[in-house]
Structure formats: structure tokens, C-alpha cells
């Protein structure tokens, strides 16, 4: 009978993550099994070193810097003479007034007034950051941009457009979640601004977005795709024909059109072409030859010939592109792409070749996570 080993459980054993029975079994086994004891000793040495990791405090300057950034960006307005305890006092006072004064009708009127007063007070002190303003502040960086259908204070409101000429450049505050800089010769339109979605349309030109928000809260439409922010900084160009180029500087952006999606991470570029849809993302460090073949494949019917060249030219960083191509080609071609991917990386635990070939969503996600290590090396 084959002997049972517990190598996979050694860390859990040392970290006391096993049940009492399991802990005893593994402990006894390690005593007499030289293979598992050797594994145990090696892992224990690493664990002993790791025990030296301690928590550390951030210096005070970090908080000061945070406050400075908030002040500078008007993300958060300080509320002078207001703190949580005052709010609590207000609430308690309000409850007391309601209880005592509701005995008589005359006093009821007084309570009603107080309630109005408390509500008004609260509304006045709610900071700008948490009112989902439908008017976005615009600041001219150079020259003078033109806003059509502007709100009274020259802000962008839903339905208004901002246009820059060759000499002007403007900055837009995207509600309270970030900023967009609009380059010269650009036209943007504010499509929507609600708690669950802030949406711009870039008709032509270029914008640079810096967004601090949960994924999918900020979207920029272009004539050929929608750029959905997944928490990031990026540049987006749209030419006169409505084709676009997305270059992600930090985080991730999802380019979407008609159910197709390209996930573009930091350091990657993705083109879209009007009438052809989404291109395949590629690393900004990909060779020119690789980029040219990819463009042929995506937009000029390069077909199998281009795909073979792409595979021959691919380097480990290009697994970003290959991962996307897996789900965009026929099953026969898929196998070839996967073979190339596996020449750079192994399949992660729980992922099978068959699963990838039948486009199992979870397995594809795990594979992407594994390949990300190659994209940034």
C-alpha cells in the first residue's frame, strides 16, 4: 500500500490551521517520515524568518498629505465647527423635543419648525463631495474652451458639450471621483451623472482620465467602443473617423462593444476601429512587428496567416494579447495559441487545457491572473 504523505499540509500544520485530529495525525507522521520531516524543516525555517515581520505605523506626514490632496482637489470640504458629537447632540435634542412637545397641538407646531430647522442645517453642511452634482466644474488650463448648453456657473451639465480649439485645454472635475483633462481640438459631452454612473462621450480628440472610484462607475463612450473604468488612469484618443486608441497608465480599463470585452491593464494599449469593433490589447513594449501583425489580424482580415506570425513573434509579455485571442478564434486556432501560452507559463492549479479550450470563464480568469506575472516582468 502506498504511504500517505502530508507535504501540502505542513504550512497549515505550523500555522495551527488544521483541526485537532488532523494536527495530531500530521505531527505524528512528520516524526517518522523522513520526506515529510525534511519538508517540514524547510518550511519551518521560512516560517521562523517570516515571524520577524511586524506591523509598522505610517508616519504622521501621510495623513497630512492626504488632507492636502483632498483640499487641493475639493474632494472633501472641511466642516468648521461641526463634528460627530455635535451631530449626536442634534439628534438627541431633536428626539427630546419631539417627545416632550408633541403633547399639545401648539407645541407640535413648534416641533415641526425644529425638525425643519435641523434638516435645513444638515443639508447646508453636507459637503460637496457627497452631492452627486449633475454639473461638473470646468477649468481652462490654457486658452478658452467652449461649453454649449452650460449651467449658470459655466459648469458641464447633462447634455452639455465642451469643445477645445487648437489653443485650448481644459480640466473637468468628474463629480467627486476624479478628473479628466481635455486636450486641444477635442469635443466631449456629459451624458449622465448619477450615484451609480458617470458617463462622458468623447466625440473626437483626446482626454486623460484619473479616477479614484469603484470599478464601472466612470464610462467614456467613443464612436467605436465604451471605455469602462476599473479604477485607473488612462489616455483615450478618438480620430476624425471615430477610431480610438486607449493607453492605460495605471489600473485597468475594460473596452466594451456589443458584448465583447478587452481588459486593458496598466502599460497596455488597445485600438478600436469604427465598423470593425474592438482590437486586441497589447503591451506598450511589444515589438513593432508584433503590433503590425496584430493590427492586420484585428482590422485587415489578416486571418490565419497573421495569427501564425503573431505566435512566432510573441514574447512572454505578449501573453496579454494571446490570452485575449484565445476566446476570439476558432477552437483549432485556440489550441495553437494555448500551446504558445504554455511555453511561457504553466496552467494554474484547478485549470485544465480542456477547460480553457471550451472557454470556461473561471479557468480563463485564473489563467489571466497567472499570466499577469509575465506582463510586468
Amino acid at each position, binding site marked *: 500500500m502506498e504511504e500517505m504523505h502530508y507535504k501540502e499540509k505542513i504550512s497549515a500544520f505550523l500555522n495551527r490551521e488544521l483541526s485537532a485530529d488532523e494536527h495530531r495525525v500530521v505531527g505524528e507522521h512528520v516524526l517518522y517520515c523522513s520526506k515529510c520531516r525534511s519538508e517540514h524543516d524547510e518550511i519551518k525555517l521560512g516560517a521562523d*524568518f517570516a515571524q520577524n515581520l511586524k506591523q509598522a505605523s505610517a508616519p504622521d506626514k501621510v495623513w497630512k498629505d492626504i488632507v492636502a490632496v483632498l483640499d487641493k482637489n475639493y474632494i472633501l470640504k472641511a466642516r468648521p465647527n461641526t463634528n460627530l458629537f455635535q451631530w449626536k447632540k442634534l439628534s438627541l435634542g431633536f428626539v427630546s423635543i419631539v417627545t416632550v412637545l408633541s403633547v399639545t397641538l401648539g407645541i407640535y407646531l413648534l416641533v415641526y419648525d425644529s425638525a425643519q430647522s435641523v434638516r435645513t442645517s444638515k443639508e447646508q453642511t453636507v459637503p460637496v463631495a457627497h452631492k452627486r452634482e449633475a454639473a461638473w466644474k470646468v477649468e481652462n488650463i490654457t486658452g478658452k474652451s467652449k461649453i454649449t448648453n452650460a449651467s449658470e456657473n459655466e459648469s458641464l451639465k447633462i447634455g452639455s458639450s465642451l469643445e477645445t480649439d487648437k489653443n485650448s485645454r481644459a480640466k473637468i472635475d468628474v463629480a467627486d471621483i476624479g478628473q479628466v483633462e481635455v486636450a486641444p481640438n477635442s469635443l466631449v459631452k456629459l451624458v449622465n451623472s448619477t450615484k451609480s454612473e458617470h458617463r462622458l462621450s468623447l466625440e473626437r480628440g483626446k482626454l486623460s482620465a484619473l479616477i479614484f472610484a469603484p470599478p464601472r462607475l466612470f464610462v467614456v463612450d467613443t464612436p467605436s467602443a465604451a471605455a469602462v473604468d476599473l479604477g485607473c488612469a488612462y489616455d483615450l484618443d478618438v480620430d476624425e473617423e471615430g477610431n480610438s486608441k486607449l493607453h492605460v497608465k495605471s489600473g485597468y480599463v475594460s473596452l466594451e462593444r456589443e458584448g465583447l470585452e478587452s481588459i486593458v491593464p496598466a502599460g497596455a494599449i488597445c485600438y478600436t476601429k469604427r465598423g470593425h469593433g474592438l482590437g486586441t490589447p497589447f503591451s506598450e513594449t511589444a515589438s513593432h512587428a508584433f503590433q503590425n501583425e496584430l493590427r492586420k489580424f484585428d482590422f485587415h482580415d489578416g486571418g490565419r496567416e497573421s495569427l501564425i506570425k503573431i505566435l512566432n513573434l510573441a514574447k512572454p509579455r505578449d501573453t496579454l494579447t494571446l490570452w485575449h485571442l484565445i476566446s476570439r478564434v476558432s477552437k483549432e486556432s485556440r489550441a495553437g495559441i494555448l500551446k504558445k501560452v504554455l511555453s511561457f507559463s504553466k496552467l494554474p492549479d484547478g485549470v485544465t487545457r480542456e477547460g480553457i479550450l471550451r472557454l470556461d470563464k473561471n479557468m480563463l480568469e485564473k489563467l489571466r491572473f497567472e499570466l499577469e506575472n509575465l506582463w510586468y516582468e
Partner: protein
Amino acid sequence: MDQFALMTEKMSEHDLIEACRDGDREAFGVIFSRHQKRVFSVAIGFFGGNRQTAEDVTQQVFLKLYTSITNFRGDAKLETWLYRITINTCLDEQRKKKRMAYIPDFLGLGSADANKTHEEKLIMRETSDEVRRALIEIKPKFRLPIVLKYSEGLSYQEMAEVLGCSEGTIASRLNRGHKMLAKKLESLKIDF
């Protein structure tokens, strides 16, 4: 952060989040006070002891937290959410700095046990620095469980929740991570 001390004792996390949603900077300051060690420690562990990068990451994490706190639904604990933001920010930052060498610094970390002698603290800090420097050479997927386990004291279940994988995966990554760390630090074995 002394000005927040009294509030730290009295406010529940739920109250603080609600107040923070209403834009209360003091409430946000209390959340920062309560959680800054977690965020900074994960960042400094992730970046091999580089304090400057850890400070930048800590700042980014709390700005992201503030701007997105209205969307915090309370399905997970705030600290789980914060760990996730921290890890994503660390990975982002690593991408940005992918071609830069990390230069860990040797300045004080302000976390040594108060009962230890000065000499013991120095030895401990140096070993801690060595461990952090060794960790930077290990891939993030093996590095992160080690940081979360030993710096933060998270259980396998908590780590699985933060990292979005199974407890079995955590156990397996820790096995490999421990061995990699042992190999990189073998030369310290005698001193250690």
C-alpha cells in the same frame, strides 16, 4: 492623530462610515487612525521595506477609500475591503515601477516591542529588514500570503477572502512561499 483619540474610543465602525459618507473629515481621520497600520504594513512588506513607496501606497489607498466609501455596502468587513484596495494598489504600483530597482531603507519602523532592549530591537529590525528584502524577490502571489499571515495575523479563511481564492490555495502558496523565503535567507540561519 492625537486629536482623533477620543473619537476612536467611542465611535463604532458603522457610525464612522456613515459620518464619513456625509463628508466628515474627522470621522475619516478616525478610520485612518484605526487602519493605517494595516495598510502601511502590507505595503512596506510588499515593497521590500521601501518606506517611501509604502507611504505613497498608504496615501493612495485612503484617498480611494474616501472617494468610494459611498459604495461600501457592508457585505464584507471594512478591513477586508481595505486589504483588497491595498493589495490592488500595491500591484498597480509595482506595475508602474516594474523597471525600477527597489531600495529598501534602514530607517526606524516604529513597531518594535517596547519590552525589548535597544540591542534586541536593533537585531529584530535588521532581521525584519532582511526578511522584507528577501520577500521582494518572491512573486506577489506567494509574497502576499506571507505578509498577510505574519505581519497582519490573518487566518487562512480571512486571507482567502481578501485574496479571492480558496483556503487550499492559500495553504499551497504559503508552502511554496515559506520554502522560497528559507532558501533566500539560508545564510542568516546561524545568526538567526
